[in-house]
C-alpha cells in the first residue's frame, strides 16, 4: 500500500488553490468539498435535473434513479440493513428534531425519561427540551469526570432510572473525544432503552457500521463529511422509523389525503415530506464514493500524526490550557491561553490566517460545567498537512506573546 500523499489528496480541493494563504482548522464546523462533489452537483443540474418520485416522464425517472442510488450509496456506506432505513433530511439537526418530535406522544409520555450527556451539542439537547416539556418527559444528564470524560459509573446509575431513550454523541464536537460507544450502547440496550447516536462528528472519523453498532438511530450531516450543505441522514431501524410521527407533512409522503383522514406513505417517503434536496443527496453520495477511493486507516493514521505533532508543539508553549485528551481523540483539540478569552486568541490566529473557531461551540452546558467562557478549537482533517500544524503552532506562540506582553 502506497503511503498517504497529503498533497495529492489536497489537490482535489479547489478551495485550497483559491485560498493559498490559509490554514483551515475549522473542520468540525464544516469541511471543504473535493471537486468531485462540486461536479456531481453541477452535472445533476445541467444534465439530469428533474423532480423525483413524481414525473410520468423519463427525465423524472432518471432523477429518481439517481436519487435512490444516492440512498443506496449511503446505505452501503453505513451498512444499514436496507435503503428504507436511510432518510434524507436537511442535516443532523433536522434528524435529531425528527427523532425527538417523532417519539413523543406515541413512544414517550408524561413521566418517561430521556438520558443525555453533559457534553452534547445543542442539537442533541434543545429538541428534547422543546418537545419533552410539552409532553412531561423528564431529562437526565450524564456528568463528566475530572478529566472531562463521560462518567460511566454515573451513566450506569442513571440507566437504573430506566430511561426510554438514551441519546449521546459518538464524538464530542468540542473535545474530540471518541466516546466508549460500544459499551454505552450495550448498557443502554440492557436497560431496555431506545438508543440514539449523534454521529455528526463520528461519521467523519471512521465509516460507521450500523449493523455492528446496532443502535436504533444514528444521524449526521453531509457538509461535515466532504458533502454539500442542506443534506443530512437520519438512519433508523425500520421498526423504530415506522413508529416516528413525521415532523413534516406534505407531498409524496402521503398515501391518501382527504380533509377527513390522511394515511402516510411507506418508508422512507413517510419521513421525507416535500421536494427533497436532490442535488444535495447526489453530492453526499459523490462525497462517499470519492472518500472510498482512499484507505480509511491511512486517513486516520494521518490525522493521528497531525494530532501528535500538535500536542508535542503545544507542550512547549507557555500557558496553554488544553481541555482535550490526546488519547481516543478523533482530531479535535480544545484549548485556551490561560487567563485570556478564547475570542482574543482566535482573533490573533485569524490575523495570521489560521482559521479556528472559538466560543462555546453550541455546547453551553459543557462550558458551564467546565467553568470556562469557551475555548479555541483546532479541528483537523485528512487534507491538513504537517505544515498546517506547524503554522498553527507558530501563530499560537505569536498570539501568546502579544497577549502576555
Amino acid at each position: 500500500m502506497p503511503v498517504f500523499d497529503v498533497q495529492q489528496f489536497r489537490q482535489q480541493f479547489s478551495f485550497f488553490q483559491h485560498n493559498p494563504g490559509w490554514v483551515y482548522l475549522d473542520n468540525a464546523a464544516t469541511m471543504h468539498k473535493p471537486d468531485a462533489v462540486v461536479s456531481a452537483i453541477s452535472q445533476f443540474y445541467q444534465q439530469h435535473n428533474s423532480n423525483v418520485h413524481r414525473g410520468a416522464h423519463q427525465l423524472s425517472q432518471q432523477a429518481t434513479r439517481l436519487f435512490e442510488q444516492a440512498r443506496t450509496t449511503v446505505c452501503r456506506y453505513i451498512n444499514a440493513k436496507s435503503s428504507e432505513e436511510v432518510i434524507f433530511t436537511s442535516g443532523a439537526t433536522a434528524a435529531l428534531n425528527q427523532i425527538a418530535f417523532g417519539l413523543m406522544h406515541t413512544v414517550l409520555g408524561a413521566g418517561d425519561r430521556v438520558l443525555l450527556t453533559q457534553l452534547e451539542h445543542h442539537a442533541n439537547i434543545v429538541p428534547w427540551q422543546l418537545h419533552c416539556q410539552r409532553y412531561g418527559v423528564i431529562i437526565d444528564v450524564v456528568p463528566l469526570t475530572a478529566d472531562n470524560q463521560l462518567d460511566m459509573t454515573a451513566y450506569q446509575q442513571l440507566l437504573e432510572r430506566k430511561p426510554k431513550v438514551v441519546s449521546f454523541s459518538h464524538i464530542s464536537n468540542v473535545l474530540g473525544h471518541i466516546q466508549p460507544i460500544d459499551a454505552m450502547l450495550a448498557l443502554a440496550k440492557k436497560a431496555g432503552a431506545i438508543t440514539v447516536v449523534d454521529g455528526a462528528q463520528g461519521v467523519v472519523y471512521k465509516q460507521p457500521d450500523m449493523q455492528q453498532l446496532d443502535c436504533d438511530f444514528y444521524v449526521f450531516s453531509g457538509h461535515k463529511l466532504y458533502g454539500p450543505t442542506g443534506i443530512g441522514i437520519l438512519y433508523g431501524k425500520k421498526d423504530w422509523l415506522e413508529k416516528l410521527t413525521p415532523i413534516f407533512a406534505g407531498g409524496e409522503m402521503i398515501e391518501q389525503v382527504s380533509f377527513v383522514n390522511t394515511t402516510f406513505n411507506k418508508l422512507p417517503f413517510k419521513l421525507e415530506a416535500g421536494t427533497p434536496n436532490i442535488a444535495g443527496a447526489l453530492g453526499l453520495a459523490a462525497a462517499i464514493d470519492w472518500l472510498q477511493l482512499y484507505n480509511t486507516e491511512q486517513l486516520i493514521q494521518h490525522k493521528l500524526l497531525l494530532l501528535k505533532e500538535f500536542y508535542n508543539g503545544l507542550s512547549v508553549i507557555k500557558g496553554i490550557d488544553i481541555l482535550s485528551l490526546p488519547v481516543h481523540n478523533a482530531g479535535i483539540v480544545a484549548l485556551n491561553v490561560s487567563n485570556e478569552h478564547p475570542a482574543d486568541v482566535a482573533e490573533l490566529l485569524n490575523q495570521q490566517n489560521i482559521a479556528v473557531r472559538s466560543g462555546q461551540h453550541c455546547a453551553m452546558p459543557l462550558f458551564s460545567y467546565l467553568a470556562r467562557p469557551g475555548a479555541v478549537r483546532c479541528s483537523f482533517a485528512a487534507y491538513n498537512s504537517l505544515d498546517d500544524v506547524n503554522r498553527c503552532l507558530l501563530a499560537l506562540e505569536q498570539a501568546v506573546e502579544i497577549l502576555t506582553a
Partner: protein
Amino acid sequence: MKLEQLLAETRSALVQINEQDLSKITQAKDWQSKYRVLMQLGKKLPPVPEKMKQPELLVKGCESRAWLLHYHNKTDDKHYFVLDSEARIVKGLMAIMLCLVNGMSSAELAKFDLNHKFDQLNLKPYLSQSRGSGLTAMAEKIKACC
C-alpha cells in the same frame, strides 16, 4: 364473480398472451405498434369487479390504482394471480409480468428476477424506480406472496 372464476379466466388469458402476444411486442416495428399491443394485452385480462377491489389489494406506489389478488394452491405449492389497473398501458405491462410468474412455486417466485426478464423482453425501461409506474411495486407485492 368468484375468485376461482377470475383465476381461471386470468390463467387462460395469460396462456394466450404468452403464446401469441409476447413475440408481437418484441417484434413491433415502432413504439406505436408496441403500445397498441400492450393495451390489447390489458384488455384480455378479466376486469376485477368493483366490490372485490378491497383496499388491502391495492398496490401502493402506483400513480394509477392497481389491484393484485393472489391464490396459493398449497397442495402443489403454486401461486396464481389476478390483477387489474385503471391505466391500460400499466395493465398491459403488468399482464406480461403475470405471464412470467403465474403458476410458479414459492421457491421459483423467490428466485425470480424480474429485472432480468424484462431486460430480455426489451421492457426494462418501464421498470423504473419511479413511484409513477408502479411496476416495481407490483413486482414487490408479487414476490411478497411467497
